[in-house]
């Protein structure tokens, strides 16, 4: 009897600890319950718009997850997200540049910002929070100057980026799926990316075993900024307008999704699937509240409370395990 309850508690603990499995169960349960209660939920239209809306966020969340695994994070991704669209829009509209070239330049600039972040943090030794906080303001300021009040009249070639369909699904959903598959493979199978877990758990030990921590960190910040820029370009193409305010507050939403998906701010934990599950979960809660016609003000209360409960439960579990 005693051993039986022990087995039971260890199983519940394991599910609680594998956050993506836990979230997966909750997401499925919520969806089934919701489809019985609300007719509007389980329609194809709702599912498609649901996936379309979360596609950009989840791409940014994957980049943030890699940073969180290595024990860092980046508050400037929301601004980089906005800047990418503004640079591309500005080049295409005011300078009549070719859309491929414009997108390319926007991505390069944003990856450069990531490299600067990474260099300041790992090489110079500035705290990641302060460095990326400053970069968030700096980049947003430039996005406001470049994008102005918004740029419309973007060329057709650029609008095609997000406005095509493949197998009845809008193409941003496919971008998301491809990026998820690539990074799941990279982070779980490739030695180079596995090193980020090591760095996150113990940076000094990683350094002593010969891992070039500085270079690894710079690369991770470049990936995070690059993915944010890709998502920004996709959203700009989807909305057919480059807005200088797009992506505001995104950094905190994405960190929330990653933490819910099992990342820890002290590093060493998390997975790409966790980032995706966290994003889906937040999007699902928001979607349900819209369908249930709950006031939009409740969204931040509910998401914030869930985050608080999740991390508090985590801390309590960790403490009881330590004792």
């Amino acid at each position, binding site marked *: 009897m005693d051993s039986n309850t022990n087995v039971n508690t260890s199983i519940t603990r394991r599910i609680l600890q594998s956050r993506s499995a836990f979230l997966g169960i909750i997401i499925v349960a919520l969806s089934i319950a919701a489809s019985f209660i609300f007719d509007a939920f389980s329609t194809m239209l709702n599912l498609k718009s649901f996936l379309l809306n979360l596609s950009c966020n989840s791409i940014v969340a994957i980049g943030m997850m890699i940073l969180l695994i290595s024990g860092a994070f980046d508050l400037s991704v929301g601004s980089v997200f906005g800047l990418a669209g503004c640079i591309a829009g500005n080049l295409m509209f005011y300078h009549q540049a070719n859309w491929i070239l414009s997108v390319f330049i926007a991505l390069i600039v944003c990856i450069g910002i990531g490299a600067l972040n990474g260099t*300041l943090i790992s090489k*110079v*030794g*500035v*705290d990641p*929070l*302060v*460095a990326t*906080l*400053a*970069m*968030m*303001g*700096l980049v*947003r*300021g*430039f996005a*406001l*100057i470049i994008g102005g009040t918004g740029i419309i009249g973007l060329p057709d070639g650029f609008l095609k980026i997000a406005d095509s369909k493949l197998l009845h699904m809008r193409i941003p959903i496919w971008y998301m799926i491809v990026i998820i598959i690539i990074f799941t493979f990279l982070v779980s199978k490739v030695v180079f990316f596995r090193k980020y877990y090591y760095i996150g758990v113990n940076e000094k030990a990683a350094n002593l075993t010969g891992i070039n921590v500085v270079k690894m960190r710079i690369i991770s910040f470049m990936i995070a900024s690059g993915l944010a820029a890709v998502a920004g370009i996709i959203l700009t193409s989807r909305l057919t307008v480059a807005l200088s305010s797009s992506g505001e507050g995104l950094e*905190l939403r994405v*960190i*929330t999704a990653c*933490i819910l998906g099992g990342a*820890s*701010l*002290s590093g060493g934990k998390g997975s790409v699937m966790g980032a995706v599950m966290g994003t889906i979960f937040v999007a699902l809660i928001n979607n349900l509240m819209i369908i249930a016609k709950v*006031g939009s*003000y*409740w*969204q*931040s*209360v*509910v*998401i*914030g*409370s869930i*985050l*608080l409960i999740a*991390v*508090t439960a*985590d*801390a*309590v579990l*960790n*403490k009881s395990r330590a004792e």
Partner: protein
Amino acid sequence: MGKFFILNNLQVKSTVKKLLQNRVLFLLLLIFIIFLFAGIAYDTFVTENNIKTVISNMSIDAIVTIGMMILLISGVFDLSVGSVLGFSAAINAVLIERAGFNPVLSIIIAVVSCICIGIFNGVVIAKIGVNHLIVGLAMLGVVRGVVMLIVGAGITRLPDSFLVIADSSFLKWKLPIWYLVIIAAIFSILLRKTVFFRRYYYIGGNEKAAALSGINVVTMRVISYAISAGLAGISGIFLSSRLAAAIPTLGSGLELRAITACILGGASLNGGYGNVLGAVLGTLFMGLINNLMIVSRASISWQRIVISGILLLAVTLDAVIKKSGVD
């Protein structure tokens, strides 16, 4: 001759280093430079009216920044202060306008409920051991949501007896400036002279050593969160009194502005550094930059670029100096 020159050069270098490391002096120098150049370039900058406006605008932010500084000295921070500021304004306005409370009573209720939020944050962080960034992040969303639920589109028509709080003048200065002076003086003395508050430096320097030497770190942290939230609550009262309204976005984004001002004023995210004067000067500096942008009719976007650029420069210089000191 050559030897003398080298010595002199070294002396200059160490003076520059000291100046950069003493952030209060550095900020004073920067503020002086702003006054000098802006005074020459723009007639409207160094006028009594403009200076008074800058100082009364920054005074409410500065009160929140002082609370944030105490947290940063002890090695943590609170992302929810902006929402807490909005919360206190909202509670107060609802009690006065919808429930017909006496302003004094409603202010007390609003500030006390803010202090309770601070105590809750402190308990979750220090007692249970959740990361302070995540708790702040979650509470930022929760409290802001509650604010929006309470005030909706905003509450105006606050009574004159409440508006007096921020609208009166004393010795030709608006009252919020005096509130700031009093609060800054109190906390400056507390942090300099009392053993209790000096312990925050110790906790920020080495939390484990502080706990081992018999300091009750958990209680100290809960108290610091209560102080910070309480100061944010008081600021919310002042701000809604000055604006004669409680709007749902009141104080949003303030948390990052307050942290920026503290870092500019010499705080470090690792704890152990900073003082009240640094917090006030950091806020004043940001206020002056904002004002300068308005006076010079530069695009509003440049404000963020200049302030963020200076923040980035300051922390990068700090890190470089620290590294060269180690080498």
